[in-house]
């Protein structure tokens, strides 16, 4: 008896679907126990056949997204919010900052890419005024953040669904897989605007470079910091940030960097606020962040 998997692609970039294909030969092993009944990028299935597991990529941006998400929920037993857009809004969620009307006005009214005033015809799905993660609309059974989630975690998640007794989805931060050494170094100056650091073996925070590894859930095998680029937080906040009302990305980064380097916490926090749009890019549309000071992002960005 094979497990039936159905997938849907809303406001996302298809990267999450491609990540499934990135399972390579693991995918072949999977097909012994799994049958894909609907995959928009591979199959010409328009309807929503009944399935055991539904995988939804992308946020809710248009009326089509909303309707498709509800149909997915009705047709599957277990629904997975797949990738950061579905879980937190992700890059699509930055649309939170602007009303749908003004987005359309900018794109079509101002003539950035076309003759000004040529509006899309009525066949295009209507844009909603805002962007929301899918759990604002339907109940989600599992969340798999990541931009995209690393195939290792996709395999773990599917394996976990096939045999629920297997505990495979740990909730640690990116630091837990980072090879760099975190140590106290001083004096260090705050490296503004940098995503790389001079020493490839030492933690970014120790070198005064803002890295989001310690406040980001690890669904990526720490690819970026291990290859010399500071974490940008693409898998969304770590569990403590999600659940503790008094914790916030910028304060936790500032506290840790300050303890490691002696740079004033206030200076680091101020810098992160000035760069707000970068550091909250992946989770700002999520209700999880509503109670954080991140809501001041509009003020910070000015």
């Amino acid at each position: 008896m094979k497990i039936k998997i159905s997938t849907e692609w809303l406001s996302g970039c298809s990267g999450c679907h491609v990540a499934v294909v990135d399972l390579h030969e693991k995918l072949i092993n999977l097909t012994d126990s799994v049958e894909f009944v609907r995959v928009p990028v591979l199959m010409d299935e328009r309807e929503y056949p009944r399935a055991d597991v539904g995988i939804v990529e992308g946020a809710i941006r248009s009326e089509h997204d909303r309707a498709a998400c509800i149909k997915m929920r009705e047709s599957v037993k277990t629904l997975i919010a797949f990738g950061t857009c579905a879980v937190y809004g992700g890059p699509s969620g930055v649309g939170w900052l602007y009303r749908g009307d003004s987005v359309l006005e900018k794109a079509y009214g101002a003539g950035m890419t076309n003759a000004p005033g040529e509006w899309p015809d009525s066949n295009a799905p209507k844009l909603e005024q805002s962007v929301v993660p899918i759990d604002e609309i339907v109940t989600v059974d599992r969340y798999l953040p990541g931009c995209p989630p690393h195939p290792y975690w996709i395999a773990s998640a599917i394996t976990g669904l096939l045999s629920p007794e297997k505990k495979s989805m740990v909730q640690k931060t990116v630091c837990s897989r980072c090879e760099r050494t975190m140590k106290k170094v001083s004096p260090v100056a705050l490296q503004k605007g940098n995503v790389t650091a001079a020493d490839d073996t030492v933690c970014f925070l120790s070198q005064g470079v803002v890295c989001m590894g310690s406040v980001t859930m690890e669904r990526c095998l720490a690819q970026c910091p291990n290859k010399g680029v500071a974490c940008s937080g693409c898998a969304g906040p770590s569990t403590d940030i999600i659940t503790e009302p008094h914790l916030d990305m910028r304060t936790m980064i500032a506290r840790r960097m300050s303890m490691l380097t002696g740079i004033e916490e206030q200076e680091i926090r101020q810098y992160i606020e000035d760069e707000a749009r970068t550091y909250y890019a992946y989770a700002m549309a999520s209700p999880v962040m509503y109670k954080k000071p991140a809501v001041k992002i509009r003020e910070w960005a000015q």
Partner: protein
Amino acid sequence: MNNSAPEITIDEKACVGCALCADICPTKVFEYSESDAVPGVVKAHECFGCLSCTEICPATAISHSNIRMSQVFYHDPKALALAKKTGETALVYNVIEEEESLKQAEEDLGMRLLSVASVLKQTLGQSLPAVGTMAGRSLATQLPRYQHPESVEDVLAMIVHMFSGAWEIEPELSDDKLTLTVGKCFIRDLCGREGISLGGDLCVLFYNYLAGYFNKISGIRPRLTKASRGQEQCVYEVKLYKPSS
């Protein structure tokens, strides 16, 4: 709660050897050795479960068991559910979810509100409504609002959603008249429990709290023209004064 010593485990694979736990622990439970580059737990019996180490640990490598956790009444259920559904919970929570305890928390909060309101009333007398308005106005600057609502309807829809935990509000708008029907109400339940008649200090305080919030966001001045309160629902009739542009 058993009386055995707290157990603290450090996942050595996840640990990055930063020693921040040793720095932050108030009772010096950890000792960091340069040679192992991993902190050791040397005085577990001294741990009193403040969880500072778990909080500061960049890698979520520290877990505790056998510690006495303080009970947490306040947690966003939505956030908790999300955290639970991303994998096995890495953190220890002691969240009060049972109906009974929640009721207890509600009563506890209610009693505090009552005493706050009575202290305010005694010290400020007639200025009580102004305190509510100020609190509401200051809340408006803190609560989430990425997009500025553009119409009165938008503001009202936002308020209904925002305060749904405490009040069931049905707004009706016609021109410059606004009728607010409040169904389920946290304050009314409290008055019922404590045998307080409706329309007292708390009702005044919280009506003005809402009005202050509305005023700060919309720029419109609401003036209460009639309030009728009842055991099932309360109805507030409000006249709106839009700023002359």
